[in-house]
């Protein structure tokens, strides 16, 4: 049995709960054991690092300190979220590269009776341990319902293969780990050169026009290559492509419908699990038509009511689109 410490990250409990549910569903067939880091806190995402350096690294390091205190026979911390993975790995790396940072962070941790010796833990992403510890062979053996005929593009995102402090990935720009894993499930994997292009990260919140363009590139390329869905390893990527696709379509006047699921959800399907226990159906861009290709029926969840469309009547605020944005810019 492979034992690990799990750092779930905030989004696994909310926007990416489908990721958590599907992760739980593949633990048993692959004989994995995860112990959640007790009382872990947010890693600060990409926001805290830009405000205060020492507090940002102390926030991250509290998790590492808690993990190193928690003895379950392993020193490997697994993060399923790419941003969490990068922050944990970054703190561990820079505390060694710049010892003065390590000293200060430990001084801060001491105020909470904690300490962390950088380099004593291995920080790894979920797909890393699945491909390199569990192995594709074992994954292939667990498949009972091959995803034959499902056309997917593997979307690795940026924070996972880069900057890659510990040289864990096959390539920084065109890594093949996700391709290989999806092929092991029997899926029809389409080459996707944009696999590590950015989804926009927090720009959906602070600079929507910039973000919409990045989302459009990813979705239109996947669509042009004939993909039925995108497959991701990161809650942030899933959120941007899924929840902001509608707004992106309105912005550009396009009509893309490109569902995006977590790779663990497809693993669960291939292992014969019920779509419902894999959180399939909570995506906003429905995967119903895509999964119908392999005979999987997506459970019906309550769809939100469509917004009323009426041109006459009282003046109402309008949807944010390119024209509106240009008008704003002129102002």
């Amino acid at each position: 049995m492979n034992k690990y410490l799990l750092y779930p990250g905030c989004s696994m409990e909310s926007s990416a709960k489908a990721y958590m549910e599907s992760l739980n569903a593949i633990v048993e067939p692959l004989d994995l054991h995860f112990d959640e880091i007790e009382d872990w806190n947010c890693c600060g995402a990409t926001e805290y690092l830009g405000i205060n350096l020492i507090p940002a690294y102390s926030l991250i390091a509290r998790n590492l300190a808690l993990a190193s205190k928690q003895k379950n026979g392993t020193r490997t911390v697994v993060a399923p979220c790419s941003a969490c993975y990068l922050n944990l790995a970054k703190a561990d790396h820079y505390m060694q590269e710049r010892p003065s940072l390590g000293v200060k962070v430990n001084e801060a941790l001491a105020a909470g009776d904690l300490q962390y010796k950088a380099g004593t833990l291995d920080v790894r992403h979920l797909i890393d341990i699945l491909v390199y510890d569990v192995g594709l062979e074992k994954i292939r053996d667990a498949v009972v319902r091959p995803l034959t005929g499902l056309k997917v593009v593997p979307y690795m995102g940026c924070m996972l293969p880069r900057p890659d402090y510990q040289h864990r990935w096959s390539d920084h720009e065109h890594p093949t780990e996700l391709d290989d894993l999806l092929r092991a499930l029997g899926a029809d994997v389409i080459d996707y050169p944009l696999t590590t292009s950015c989804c926009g990260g927090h720009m959906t919140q602070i600079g929507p026009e910039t973000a919409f363009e990045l989302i459009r590139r990813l979705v239109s390329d996947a669509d042009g290559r004939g993909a039925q869905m995108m497959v991701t390893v990161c809650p942030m990527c899933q959120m941007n492509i899924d929840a902001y696709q509608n707004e992106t379509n309105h912005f550009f006047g396009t009509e893309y419908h490109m569902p995006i699921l977590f790779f663990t959800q497809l693993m669960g399907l291939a292992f014969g699990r019920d779509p419902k226990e894999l959180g399939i159906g909570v995506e906003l861009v429905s995967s119903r038509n895509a999964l119908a290709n392999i005979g999987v029926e997506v459970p019906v969840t309550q769809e939100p009511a469509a917004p009323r469309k009426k041109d006459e009547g009282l003046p109402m605020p309008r949807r944010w689109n390119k024209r509106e944005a240009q008008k704003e810019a002129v102002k």
Partner: protein
Amino acid sequence: MPQMTDERVRAGLTHEEDLSLLHEVSMKTAGVSRLEMCIQCGTCGGSCPVAKDMDHTPRMLFAMLRAGMREEVLRSNTQWLCVSCYHCVVRCPQEVHIADVMYTLKGMAIKAKLYANSTAPDFSQTFVDMVESYGRSFEMGLASRHYLKHFPLRLPGMMPMGLGMITKGRMALTPKRIKHMDQLTKILNRAKQLEMTS
């Protein structure tokens, strides 16, 4: 005026110039930034997915740092548009920690109250406020506070998305708080003191 040391001559400096801003940014960056090693090749700007929306490409910004143009650098939107995709970082022939330098510049711009538009700094600050209150991020609180203040026009278009997230159980209406919030608060307060003295 800086001395013409051997090191400076080896670095190709033919006349005395003031590199204090460059050094300040480098020292404030986590890890070893290697900012001084930039050879102005422009690979960073050429690799950047959002360069077209930036006031200055990273290369240009680094040239401005070297020239000591503090205010212009801190007012630039470049650091705020950086999406932390690390494309430039893995391609930089000098291995400059470009993305981390961008984080440093954000922090310096906030402290100097120099930024063209407050949307991004406010978003970061709101996020940090949530984390400092609960120990976890709180998407609902973050999104509603942020959109009401900065993007009220986007709200009608976002209603179906927000409703979808809530009805599908993907957005909690109340924040989650960690057990030992007092411990985290002590750590962060101590860290803030250390930040000031460094």
